[in-house]
């Protein structure tokens, strides 16, 4: 094979360099690897080498209610984007259009595609597909009612967020009427680590305490936002906010299991914020 390549290269370069007699090109002819002509040839599809991966995805259809099942799908990773969401979309486009899941921004900012991938909660658009031939198991967020396939009922989660009154509450008008309430950089830095929350529910649904008491315990996400408003220097209802969560169930079902910090796809630490609230309850 090498000799034929060399022969072809010699012929090609001799044809090309017939006009320009170049000592370098004459030297180039004796190269043991493919010459310019071979480089121009377009290689056909990567010969039969595919990288198949199996995805086991939780399926349940409300129109045809049976026991929920894990269904296998095989896709070629070489023709798929790197993230789990790419794989899901590929499956939906090419193999099974009835696969149902939430998605929107595909860049980890909207929080729609939160699901349980290989046992850990995360955003599908930010979770890379594991290389290797092991199967990837995708199930919906744990301990939530399933509407269909990977879509869960988030009503309770949103209601808990609403219940902590996530807006600015003041008793006095702003210091300069008609203008914004000034806040120092130090006070603004206190909100870092809390304002970035996208309410994807990865943390709350990873907390075993939230699994066993979903309606009475507020969950790490809602408590993180509660702390965000408690720590806001512009908000004047701090004491009332602290009293509102000072309940055996709403706040103190947290046993610092800290699964929430491990699960957060944005790298936040709800456990730390909950500890902050608990400390404020003690001192303030």
């Amino acid at each position, binding site marked *: 094979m090498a000799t034929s390549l060399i022969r072809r290269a010699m012929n090609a370069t001799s044809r090309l360099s017939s006009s320009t007699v170049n000592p370098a090109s004459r030297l180039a002819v004796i190269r043991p690897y493919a010459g310019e002509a071979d480089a121009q040839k377009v290689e056909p599809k990567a010969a039969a080498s595919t990288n198949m991966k199996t995805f086991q995805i*939780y399926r*349940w*259809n*409300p*129109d*045809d*209610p049976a*026991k*929920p099942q894990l269904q296998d799908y095989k896709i070629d990773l070489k023709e798929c984007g790197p993230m789990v969401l790419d794989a899901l979309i590929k499956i939906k486009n090419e193999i099974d*259009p*009835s696969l*149902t899941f939430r998605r929107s921004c595909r860049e980890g900012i909207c929080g729609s595609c939160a699901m*349980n991938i*290989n*046992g*850990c909660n995360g955003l599908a658009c930010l979770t890379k597909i594991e290389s290797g031939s092991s199967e990837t*198991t995708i*199930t*919906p*967020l*744990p*301990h*939530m*009612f*399933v*509407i*269909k396939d990977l879509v*869960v*009922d988030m*009503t309770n989660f949103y209601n808990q967020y609403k219940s902590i009154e996530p807006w600015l509450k003041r008793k006095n008008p702003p210091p300069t009427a008609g203008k914004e309430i000034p806040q120092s950089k130090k006070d603004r830095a206190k909100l870092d680590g809390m304002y970035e929350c996208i309410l994807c529910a990865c943390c709350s649904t*990873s907390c*075993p305490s939230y*699994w066993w008491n979903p309606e009475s315990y507020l969950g790490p996400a809602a408590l993180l936002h509660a702390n965000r408003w408690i720590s806001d220097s512009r908000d004047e209802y701090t004491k009332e906010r602290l009293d509102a969560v000072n309940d055996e169930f709403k706040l103190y079902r947290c*046993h*610092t*299991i*800290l*699964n929430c*910090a*491990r*699960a*957060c*796809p944005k*790298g*936040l*630490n709800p*456990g*730390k914020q909950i*500890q902050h609230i*608990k*400390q404020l309850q003690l001192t303030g």
Partner: protein
Amino acid sequence: MASSLALKRLVSSNILPSSLRVLRPIVTAPSASRVSNTNAAREDVFDPLSPTRSPNQAVNIRDQFMQNQFLSASRGMATLAKGEGEASEPKNILRPLSPHLPVYKPQLNATLSITNRISGAFLTTVLLFSYLLSLKMGSVCLTYSSFYQFFFYSAKLFLVSASVSALALSYHTYYGIRHLLMDLLKVGVPKVK
């Protein structure tokens, strides 16, 4: 959600049951797109009785379609919360709970936490019932001879249970100290992802 509930009530009083069998929803309205996924395989059975219809009739049929879409969509989500269903609905779907314990990958921090709880429960039982055990063991052995036989030949049980209790006590104490350190001095908090 509230609007679909209202539509449900409106529709259930209007639409005849026979029309449900004939008409199957087509995907047009965005709110009914959830239903379309499952009905993709089913063919559209809509067959007008006459090829030409007046615009009015066409609009009426389209409205019926829309209402049917909502009806079958609401049938699928007949339970807004688990178990809740309308009396007029033919099906009450109970939604399953997504898997939690069987599926979730065991984390180090969560395992340590639950072991703390288990050791605490074990120590409490030992503490509160050890007196009962030592007081009543004699009479139990006298009444149940087979138990006494087993107990006689398993003197090592004491050693085993003592070491298990010691293990539980030490683990519980260490976890308690770690908890205190984490709360007061912020030492040893597990790193976030």
